[in-house]
């Protein structure tokens, strides 16, 4: 069943009420706890949300108050967002793994009055910075464990607040109904902080119109119905999770499943078997790496079957998925492959039932993308931003390619500026950056066009958009050739052994790279080759590991040389970093995007070494542990040269 009519449904709580009356007894939320999937119907969800909303009213919550939400994906926290919206307050989900001062900045910036925290860890972080939060009134916590003995003048347990709310229904019930009725399509629905690859996070204000219109359009685009199953495991503070687990879930009435813990996500994925699945490239990458590691350890017969079947899948799989003509024998072979390899593999990955899968957030390696498509998973790409309520462009079924991000999403206009920058205008375009009119004005013009900061172009024959790089990252090398670091990094990151790569070369004579090895993959390789190591740092500097990375880089150079426009981006020198780039150290955003400038500043001695021709560099780096303590690690890094491939045109002449 698909819902299309939005008459009178001008707020998320209104959608909740509609779902309760239309799908009342259908499962709305599930969470695995104590080893079993606990579930709540739409009617039960309404009861939970109402009780909490009344509880917030009893605490004196006003329209427009900001209610911060911090914790892992749990139905209770989604209800907290719904409860806040029911009383006209604005939910502000924050990244649960953010450290003290990041949280302090966000909470202070939005002047949060209430915070719903998942557990003791979150409560502790907030209590540490309590003095700087003038407007903070109450911290509502979910899991009471370890919090019993805390001073409760500012704390309140979630369920006990719900009980108070239920008890106060008589007095406050009318007020709740009044607040719900008073909501308009242009009221603020949610505020999401951008991860901020540069500078401080900005609070993106999204209206009910933004969220509901976008959810409606995108649900129709992919024909999403109330029978879909999704797994909510991505950070709640991320616009993607808000759109999928709140916007679309409420619009179409599908069920949101929450994993038991972050570690059990893969098991839970297998148990739920989602039909609609969303993951950033790194999740797909991890999954593939795990499969490949296990295949390395498999028996020779299994390995042979796997290699044979995968080679066939690579040849015909994507064509079959796109509905292109495929020969009879190939179809038979693919059918057999599906029985013996692809089917069980999809089952292991937890993707057997996936009807529509999306990847976004970063460019995905073509080999990685094709791997999933070849075994019959309808993985597509979309291109989006928090400021657009996700959707800018999207790939329709049957028009899926690794190197484009699709056509403009329904209701979205896209144009490419003279400098190559991409602009868009849609019903999903954000209202403003909270308390930041300058940034709002510099991002969104008077006609509603928003600058993405990404450079790209439309392919003439297909009308698909291709993204080259962040507009400000695309540069020129010293001799004027084009420099697009992301392009090279994505190619490098496809190797299972390489977790992260940062390429430098703007205004330089040649390109250099920092590489992070993937400890899982390289560790497994080391075990098989009897290489002993004491930890990440030691393994990263092992000569054989360096040899391996060098081989990967030289292979990548070969492939870059194929593209005459970008052949200048070949990596001439590289080093393997002695530590993993980490969000706690500010080197990455919470969504795991590299902060190029920070890395450049922090490791300037290493860059100087790479361009100065040094063979070894000794360096000391400060690191921040998860609990906020600081330490430092020292290492002697080997800097290596990599062979450059001849340019294609030259070779052809």
């Amino acid at each position, binding site marked *: 069943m698909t819902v299309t009519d939005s008459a009178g449904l001008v707020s998320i709580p209104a959608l909740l009420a509609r779902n309760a009356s239309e799908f009342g007894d259908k499962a709305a939320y599930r969470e695995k706890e104590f*080893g079993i999937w606990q579930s709540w119907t739409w009617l039960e969800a309404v009861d939970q949300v109402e009780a909490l909303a009344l509880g917030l009213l009893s605490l004196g919550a006003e329209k427009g108050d900001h209610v911060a939400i911090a914790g892992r994906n749990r139905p209770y926290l989604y209800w907290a967002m719904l409860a806040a919206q029911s009383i006209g307050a604005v939910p502000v989900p924050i990244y649960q793994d953010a450290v003290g001062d990041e949280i302090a900045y966000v909470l202070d910036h939005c002047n949060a009055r209430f915070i719903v925290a998942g557990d003791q860890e979150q409560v502790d972080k907030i209590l540490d910075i309590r003095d700087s939060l003038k407007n903070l009134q109450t911290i509502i916590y979910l899991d009471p*464990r370890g919090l019993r*003995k805390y001073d409760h003048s500012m704390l309140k347990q979630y369920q006990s607040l719900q009980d108070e709310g239920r008890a106060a229904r008589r007095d406050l019930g009318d007020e709740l109904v009044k607040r719900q009725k008073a909501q308009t399509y242009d009221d603020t629905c949610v505020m999401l902080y951008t991860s901020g690859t540069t500078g401080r996070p900005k609070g993106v204000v999204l209206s009910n119109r933004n969220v509901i219109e976008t959810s409606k359009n995108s649900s129709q685009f992919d024909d999403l119905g109330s029978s879909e199953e999704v797994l909510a495991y991505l950070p709640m503070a991320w616009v993607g999770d808000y759109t999928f687990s709140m916007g679309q879930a409420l619009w179409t009435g599908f069920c949101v499943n929450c994993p038991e813990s972050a*570690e*059990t996500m893969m098991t839970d994925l297998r148990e739920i078997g989602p039909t609609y699945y969303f993951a950033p490239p790194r999740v797909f990458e991890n999954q593939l790496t795990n499969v490949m590691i296990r295949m390395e350890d498999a028996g020779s017969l299994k390995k042979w079957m796997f290699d044979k079947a995968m080679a066939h899948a690579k040849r015909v799989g994507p064509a079959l998925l796109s509905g292109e003509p495929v020969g009879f024998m190939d179809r038979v072979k693919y059918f057999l492959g599906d029985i013996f390899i692809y089917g069980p593999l999809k089952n292991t990955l937890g993707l057997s039932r996936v009807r529509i899968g999306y990847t976004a957030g970063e460019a995905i390696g073509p080999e990685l993308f094709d791997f999933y498509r070849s075994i019959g998973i309808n993985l597509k790409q979309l291109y989006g931003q928090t400021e657009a309520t996700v959707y800018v462009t999207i790939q329709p079924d049957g028009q899926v390619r690794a190197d484009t991000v699709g056509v403009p999403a329904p209701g979205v206009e896209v144009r490419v500026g003279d400098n190559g920058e991409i602009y868009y205008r849609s019903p999903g375009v954000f209202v403003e950056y909270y308390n930041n009119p300058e940034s709002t004005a510099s991002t969104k013009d008077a006609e509603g066009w928003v600058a993405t900061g990404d450079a790209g172009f439309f392919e003439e024959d297909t009308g698909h958009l291709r993204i080259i790089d962040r507009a400000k990252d695309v540069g020129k090398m010293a001799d004027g050739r084009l420099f697009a670091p992301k392009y090279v990094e994505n190619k490098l990151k496809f190797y299972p052994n390489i977790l992260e790569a940062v390429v430098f070369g703007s205004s330089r004579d040649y390109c250099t790279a920092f590489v992070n090895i993937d400890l899982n993959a390289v560790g497994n390789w080391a075990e098989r080759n009897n290489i002993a190591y004491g930890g990440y740092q030691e393994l990263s500097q092992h000569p054989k590991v360096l040899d391996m990375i060098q081989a990967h880089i030289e292979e990548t150079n070969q492939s870059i040389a194929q593209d005459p426009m970008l052949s200048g981006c070949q990596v001439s020198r590289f080093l393997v970093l002695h530590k993993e780039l980490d969000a706690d150290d500010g080197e990455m955003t919470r969504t795991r995007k590299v902060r190029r400038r920070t890395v450049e500043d922090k490791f300037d001695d290493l860059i100087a070494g790479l361009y100065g021709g040094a063979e070894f560099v000794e360096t000391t780096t400060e690191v921040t542990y998860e609990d906020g303590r600081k330490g430092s690690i020292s290492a002697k890094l080997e800097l290596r040269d990599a062979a450059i491939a001849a340019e294609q045109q030259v070779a052809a002449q």
Partner: protein
Amino acid sequence: MFDQAESFVTADGRTIGAVMMEMKNITLRFGGVVAIKDISFDVREGEIRAIIGPNGAGKSSMLNVISGFYHPQEGEVWYKGARRPEMKPFEVARQGIARTFQNIALFEGMSVLDNVMTGRLNHMKSGILSQAIWYGKAEREETENRAVVERVIDFLEIQHIRKTPVSRLPYGLKKRVELARALAADPKLLLLDEPMAGMNVEEKEDMSRFILDVNDEFGTTIVLIEHDMGVVMDLSDRVVVMDYGKKIGDGPPDEVRNNQAVIDAYLGVAHD
């Protein structure tokens, strides 16, 4: 501070109850070797009681006396206000005393879940036949016990290894599974024999957190042996110090830390 008053509240707001177990003049000999010499101390309800001492001081022997594995030649064990007759370890376990071991004693080939389920053994009443055919009471019992076990698994955050065979786990997690099995027995008194031996700092912090949380959430009385002084001083309410089978100190951590006999035992003094 520790008079015979029925109960009192500690500085950090925890309530320590009346005396739960009392060891009176315990002496334990193995042939001619005297492992424990005339030791007396008590354990109060709800407290964390540490036993410390250099290697070979008789700490583990003392724990084995409490758990009923060793029977002292002299002295009396009083538990819940009554003198405890000589008991087999399983009878002691039925009285609500559970323990973990210094060298991990799990069933290596079984999954974490099955290992923790064995902790519920004393709570299963159905016969071998009905368990074998999975009928009636046996089925009901297993469901109930599984529910208890799942709470413990959730509490100790080992959901992700629920179905993993114990042999594949790293050391630190095995220790946690042992604690889970002991907790599954729903003990009144929990004996921990070096719960943090061989762990790194992070694992020790986690384990300390769990021990405090167990004490806090379930009100379980805990007796633990530990070598890491920092951990002992942070966790315990009272400490018994042993050396060469004798008690050389007993009291709150701060008091014990400044006790000259304790300092000598740890740092060593010239023996005449």
